[in-house]
């Protein structure tokens, strides 16, 4: 299998990946954990805003928009 680690922002629309590591700190780290985004969670990139930032992801059945500066620190395995 061809597995590679990249950041969440690298996903193209429609691509699915699994969270490998959360490098976020402080309130943002706790916030994404509260919405169910922990290591091992499956995430799909679903929508980009007109400026390309924020980007919306499907996380445990809900669509959540995250800013790129934050999702850059969420490492995923494609």
């Amino acid at each position, binding site marked *: 299998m061809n597995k590679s680690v990249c950041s969440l922002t690298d996903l193209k629309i429609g691509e699915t990946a699994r969270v490998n590591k959360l490098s976020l700190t*402080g*309130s*943002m*780290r*706790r*916030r*994404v*954990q*509260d*919405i*169910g985004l*922990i*290591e091992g*969670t499956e995430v799909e990139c*679903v*929508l*980009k*805003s*007109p*400026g*390309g*930032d*924020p980007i*919306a992801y499907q*996380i*445990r*059945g*809900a*669509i*959540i*928009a*995250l*800013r790129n500066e*934050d999702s850059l620190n969420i490492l995923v395995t494609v």
Partner: protein
Amino acid sequence: MGLTANSTGLNAVDFGLVIKKINDNDKVIALAGNPNVGKSTVFNELTGLKQHTGNWAGKTVTNAQGVCNYNNTNYILVDIPGTYSLMAHSAEEEVARDFICFGNPDAVIVVCDATCLERNLNLVLQTIEITDNVVVCVNLMDEAKNKGIEIDLKELSIKLGVPVVGTSARSGKGLNEMMNMLETVGNNHPISIKYIKSIEEAIALVEPVIKEKIGDCTIHSRWIALKLIDYDTALISSLSSYLGLDLLEDNEIAKSLHKAREIISQNNITDEGLKDKIVSCIVLTAEEICMDIVRFDRKCYNANDRKIDKILTNKWTGFPIMIALLGLVFWITITGANYPSALLSDGLFWLEDRLVELCILIRVPKFIYEMLIFGAYRVLAWVVSVMLPPMAIFFPLFTLLEDLGYLPRVAFNLDKSFKKCCACGKQALTMVMGFGCNAAGIVGCRIIDSPRERLIAMITNNFVPCNGRFPTLIAIITMFFVGTTGGLVQSLVSTMLLTVVILLGIFMTFAISALLSKTILKGEASAFTLELPPYRKPKILEIIVRSVFDRTLFVLGRAIAISAPAGLVIWILANISIGNYTLLAHCSNFLNPFAQALGMDGVILLAFILGFPANEIVIPIIIMSYMATGSIMKLDSLFELRQLLVNNGWTWITAISTMLFSLMHFPCSTTCLTIKKETQSNKWTAISFLVPTVTGIIICFLFANIARLFI
């Protein structure tokens, strides 16, 4: 939080939560849940109250309460803010958790969204960790069914150890069953979440000590132990005062806690790591529970939503659609309001004549009936005929967009621009609320987590004209810039100009937000997550009824309550003379030099000042003042009104300056009061008052003086 009688105007001010029991047997029920799962709908269906519902996360920002009588018991339902978690990372989460812990509810109903149950279970698990008395309400079952999602509720109930009921609150389905289940919460035996070995060992050391100390308590000793190990200091001190036992000072607890922490650190778990582990265990438990009980028939159950999203948030079409929708709402408002406005005005002025005749007939002294009719009644008639139709049209349209779920997409589109100003994209939501009522917009700012960004949103909210102001803008635009002949072209031009004015307001919001971020509210943009809810089919009839009875009539009522006495005051000012001038003339003459520098005149500025309690009455005051000083004439149409204004020296410069100042001046008194209440600070209230005022003064001054150079 939307715009309702309970959320606009003075009621927007939150005076804290006091549970009003009718008698001692009443049961207090807390309604908890993730944002936007239909908690408010459940609440409304049960209590008959009109807590506003809309399709976006974070509407309910205060605790609302209502009474529901079921099986001869009064249930006092408390709608607590929607949260994803009870870990108290934000103000709402703290309010929610504190109410569940310390509000002494007899039961907690956790409302879940059937379309994304797994994430919702997170909150359910955290709630049953605190208390036994929980009923889980899986709402939006109809929506889930349409999407091909099947949920085994019986199995869920067995797995959680608390009653579970499926509901479709929008049609009232399942709610009776839910109320029945409230009576059985005493027999609940909720599961406890299994943490990793080291945390379990730590809990096993602390929990027995706590259990012995607190005895019979609705708050689980296991949870208290966990929070002590997690060292949640704010919660521990609240718990201590609630239990009447200083948890940190108690020797036995301290001893066990010390040992427990040793276990944690022996396993190389840091403070941050401990929090991670706790959350992970909860999330994974939710995942495990859902694995067996939720079935998806179709893999891409929300494909349609994604298609719509692609268009509404597209690089090329996203912004044009946004502006076009804004324009469309205004166009419908302007064209739709013309005819009923004229009709109302005819009717009310016809009634004025009859009232005068009646007064003469029954020999009411002249100065009394003139004061009441030409003062109070006339301003009232103006407010009603100018304000009511646009409001009655605008509010339902606004509600429609809200129910559809479009507003979060606006925030999604605009977030990048807000981020550039170091502000939060959710500010877009508070701005949209500002279109309805700035006071409601201010309260809505609670959805913004960072205090710095919240203050920015509060201070700039007034740059969005509320419904009390945009009829003023529409009237001036119609009179001075498009002619009053009517027709499609005229209404389109009016709409365009109004949209330009609003866009200017939005631009100013960005500019001032950026300025504030660079000066008194320095800082970086902070944690941001925005949920894009599924689109929902709005219930048209309900929207109309709700917006007319709930929003329109209420806001109108407030305008009337203020306009009648204001009319009286103006009349008195205009009819009592000192020296050669009336009091009104003294006041406006005093203001005149300053007002002239801003492109207006003393009367207009005086009207803005007198309109401090409610912006709706600014134009009526201006008209009253001119009519009181000149000969009394009949104003049957906007054309004649224009004549009156022109006779009093209005030019297009006056018109634009007045519009600019209307867009940018001090917030109304209720908004100021709300800001005071929300910020708990005189300083920020003063700043919120001064920032738009000073901006307006500068811009009007520049505009008027530059424009005068060219004529």
